[in-house]
């Protein structure tokens, strides 16, 4: 059996110390209490700060336990923080693609719509924020199934209801679509929930690369898909770029 990893033990000790002392601590105090040279202690604290487990006061340079530690037990981002951070890029994406834009997060067995930007074509549309859509029949849902497997149900546990002739209604057919989505980095939906409406979605990633939601575009299938039923690369490029920008604001490096 391999031995324990010393730097992780030291990091855990530093966190325990910060959590139990009840006041912010200086580097010298931490180094002394942990019996470490200051450069070593500094390296540990800097790393912990970068992952959000430790805060450092800008004025006093004192260290305390960071907000990231408290949110460890709560899965994902607050949905309204997510919307707020997505908003500018979602607008730009709608303007650039001519599609409606959605941000979705897993909510049990369905996708909850956190944000919605209208398709900029002057057509009457209704705001769908806080509505839910099925996982297996939408690009947003399949994106979450493919890229956030720990916080979404397994394909076999979903109610694979048929909405159109194109809906995947067996775990095997859904699984094969997820494999394709993982390979391409992008999930698609071709009139599987609403006739004539298609979508494409890519993951939004937070710190450490964890998928915390999905960013999707939606519109008439002929607008999204070219010959052979493949999403137009120009749209995927814009979608991926917007997701990358939003992910940066979510702490993904």
């Amino acid at each position, binding site marked *: 059996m391999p031995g324990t990893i010393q730097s992780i033990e030291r990091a855990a000790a530093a966190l325990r110390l910060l959590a139990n002392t009840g006041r912010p601590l200086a580097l010298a105090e931490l180094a002394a209490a942990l019996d470490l040279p200051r450069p070593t202690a500094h390296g540990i604290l800097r790393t912990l700060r970068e992952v959000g487990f430790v805060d450092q006061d800008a004025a006093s340079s004192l260290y305390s336990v960071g907000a990231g530690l408290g949110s460890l037990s709560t899965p994902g981002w607050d949905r309204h923080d997510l919307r707020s951070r997505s908003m500018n890029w979602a607008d730009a994406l709608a303007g650039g693609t001519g599609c409606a834009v959605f941000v979705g997060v897993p909510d049990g067995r369905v996708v909850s719509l956190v944000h919605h930007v209208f398709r*900029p*074509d002057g057509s009457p549309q209704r705001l769908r924020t806080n509505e839910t859509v099925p996982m297996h029949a939408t690009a947003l849902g399949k994106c979450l199934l493919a890229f956030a497997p720990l916080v979404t149900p397994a394909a076999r546990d979903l109610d694979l209801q048929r909405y159109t002739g194109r809906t995947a209604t067996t775990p095997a057919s859904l699984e094969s679509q997820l494999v394709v989505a993982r390979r391409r980095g992008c999930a698609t939906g071709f009139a599987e929930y609403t006739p004539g409406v298609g979508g494409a979605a890519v993951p939004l990633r937070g710190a450490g690369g964890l998928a915390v939601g999905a960013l999707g575009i939606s519109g008439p299938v002929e607008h999204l898909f070219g010959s052979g039923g493949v999403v137009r690369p120009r749209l995927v490029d814009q979608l991926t770029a917007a997701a990358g920008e939003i992910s940066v604001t979510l702490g993904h490096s």
Partner: protein
Amino acid sequence: MSERVVAAIDQGTTSTRCLLFNRAGRMLAVAQREHRQHYPRPGRVEHDVEEIWRNVASIVPAALRRAGLGPENIAALGIANQRETTVIWNRHTGLPLARAITWQDTRTDGIVARLTAEGHGELFSSVCGLAPATYFAGPRLRWLLDNVAGARAGAERGDVLFGTMETWLIWRLTGGPDGGMHVTDVTNASRTMMMDIRSREWSPKLLAALDVPERMLPRIRSNSEVYGTCTAVLPGVPVAGALGDQQAALVGQTCFAPGEAKCTYGTGAFLLMNTGTRMAGSTHGLIPTMGYVLGDEAPVYALEGSIAMTGSLVQWFRDSLGLIETAPQIETLALTVPDNGGCYIVPAFSGLYAPRWHPDARGVMVGLTSYIDKGHLARAVLEATGWQTREVVDAMNADSGLPVTRLKVDGGMTANHLLMQFLADVLDVPVERPLGSEAVSLGAAYAAGLAVGHWSNLETLRANWHRAAAWEPAMDPVLRRREHANWGRAVDRSYDWVEPS
């Protein structure tokens, strides 16, 4: 050949930004830099205009680099700015005589009280449309003339110039000491308490009352015309648009018809309604102001209602009460309860602004019972913004005779969908958010682009406005009436808290 774009500089209270817009009004790039806030004493807030100028000189090239464009791609430059911030400088050296006094600074309360005590209040109201207040630029200029060594003598000799922020930037951009254009635009000039709002010229009577030498003042120009050509930062590019930030948002939201209104939700909120070529007098505590003047076209007036605390109330809830970690999380907290539970918060932290104007009011929280939890407080915080907007809209409807039939919104708080729905519910009109929340910068770009023919007319700009979201009123009218009455009773309880000293 690369496409021609229009650049906008948004010189704001905390930062300066440069944005590039294409012909469809889409933002192509943005660069931003914050500047330092100086608080030399309580009630004083100053900016270093040299620092702001250096920021402009660094962000404009940065925005161009991001878009992969050069100055030759820029059709025109427009400026939108924080209003009422006041600076004086030496025309030969280009150096400011003091730091700029910003719009939040209240050091001119003595000057304003004296103007009113000397019986000038009515003169100002009738000529410039503004009752004397610490909010406006004229008293700040007077303070600088009285308190900065050499200012008055220099101004009288013609060596010292006055400007609001757009004036300073245009002067620097077009050459500074070496032939820079000393101009202001009609919207910024309308916030100085020195301009006759009907003739749109400096008023000798008001200048006499303020004791300001006219020769230090910039020429007043329209919002959309070529003021001059940049010699620095964007050499060869015409500076062709300037507006105060709130008027810029009115243009950016394409509120070109009488009765069209926009509200920008930030720290505070500013609601402006286009009242057409006729100036609407206000009997309900609103400010009649210039909307915009496009070149030689007839001037368009606006009514303005400002709400002191909207986003800042959420910040207080986050930073002082610590009930949420981030501002957007107030929506999460508010959604933990179905309604306000009978609790109301009136955020009269520094008195009540439009339309009530009660400086002696202070904030109250009423309707507290054991039932109330932090979710209800979160609701009450958001609802305060809704009801304050309703009061301004009611006053606008009464003063303009043009009922608001829909409200265009922009600013950071439009990310809060619960608030936007509540707004539609209490106003009983649809609330709409445009694609791209950069109405202020877009308005400056539009003014500049119109002046050089980059856009041919207002209809082209209207076609650029796309609805990104809309909230329809859905509140039961009986409930709306009852909640409105409750809000009114809560506001009554905030009055007369500060005792006269």
